[in-house]
């Protein structure tokens, strides 16, 4: 019995695990951890947040869609118009704050390496996150925009496609390709579970409102 388990374990390893193991080595080789936190927990003080160079990746497998990851780490684009920690990139123009120079991700992997690294990143899952929470359905665009733009003013901090918006945090452009809807649901419900010192306000949303918003965000490909 034991031997059987060992053999089937090996088979699984060769089938899928091999790439993930390569991916882990590549993350080491390309020094992703110089900028990204690859191991939890998240920092808990403002002083430590100020030292953050790049987004945490230790729950990447819960947060991202794999296809998006594969493309992004070959050719990263700007996701946070104001930088990772906006406070570190403010440039004063008189008494008006503007955004100074911000860093882009330094990852420039080949297609093959990107597949392996994405496989590894997808293994970094938060065991506590509930999956299957998001219920895909018809996107109620007008209703969602009513809630997010008029009622809750998410656009005070986030950019909406065409509409524009704030710059102190990630853009919503393309967010549907980028993020796992279950993670979005969990993050909007309680951002501080993921990042205890994140500068997003916590609002008390019921399930229907969360579904409405995540449905809309998922449609922004």
């Amino acid at each position: 019995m034991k031997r059987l388990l060992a053999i089937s374990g090996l088979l699984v390893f060769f089938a899928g695990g091999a790439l993930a193991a390569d991916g882990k080595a590549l993350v080491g080789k390309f020094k992703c951890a110089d900028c990204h936190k690859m191991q939890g927990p998240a920092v808990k003080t403002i002083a430590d947040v100020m030292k953050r160079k790049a987004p945490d990746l230790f729950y990447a497998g819960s947060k991202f869609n794999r296809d998006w990851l594969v493309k992004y780490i070959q050719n990263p684009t700007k996701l946070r118009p104001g930088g990772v920690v906006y406070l570190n990139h403010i440039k004063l123009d008189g008494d008006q704050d503007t955004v100074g120079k911000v860093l882009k991700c330094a990852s420039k992997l080949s297609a093959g390496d990107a597949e392996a690294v994405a496989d590894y990143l997808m293994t970094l899952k938060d065991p506590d996150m509930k999956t299957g929470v998001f219920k895909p359905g018809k996107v109620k665009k007008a209703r969602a925009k009513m809630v997010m733009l008029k009622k809750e003013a998410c656009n005070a901090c986030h950019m909406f496609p065409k509409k524009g918006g704030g710059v102190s945090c990630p853009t919503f452009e393309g967010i549907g390709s980028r993020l796992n809807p279950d993670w979005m649901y969990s993050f909007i419900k309680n951002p501080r579970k993921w990042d205890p010192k994140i500068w997003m306000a916590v609002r008390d949303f019921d399930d229907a409102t969360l579904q409405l918003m995540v449905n809309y965000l998922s449609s922004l490909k």
Partner: protein
Amino acid sequence: MRKIGFFNLMMGAVFMAVPLVALLGSSDAAAESAADNYKLYCVQCHGTKGVGKGINAPVLAVAPRNHTSAKDMGELTDSGVFKAIKEGGVAVGKSTQMPPWGGVLTDDEINDLVKHLRGMCKCEGKK
């Protein structure tokens, strides 16, 4: 007063260690100074100088309050300022673009922020 023996202390330490580890492991973060909270949460809209000119301000439909203006801030009561921070602009009949911070800051931290704002405007709250 009751004397606490070495054994009791040790046992206490063992029992204390369990919840302590649990606490450190939870996402509950430590209290921060009003100046640091202001920087992290408020500057994005109210600006480095507190005059309402943060990086997000140009896209807002309503200008964030100028926290250094004795005239504007002097019209608000301390309890009104507390409520605006905790429950958001809507709770005090103002814009929803001023978010609610009650889920982020403790009441003590919000009270400290009210004092911090009074230092910025060098003014007292309306009675």
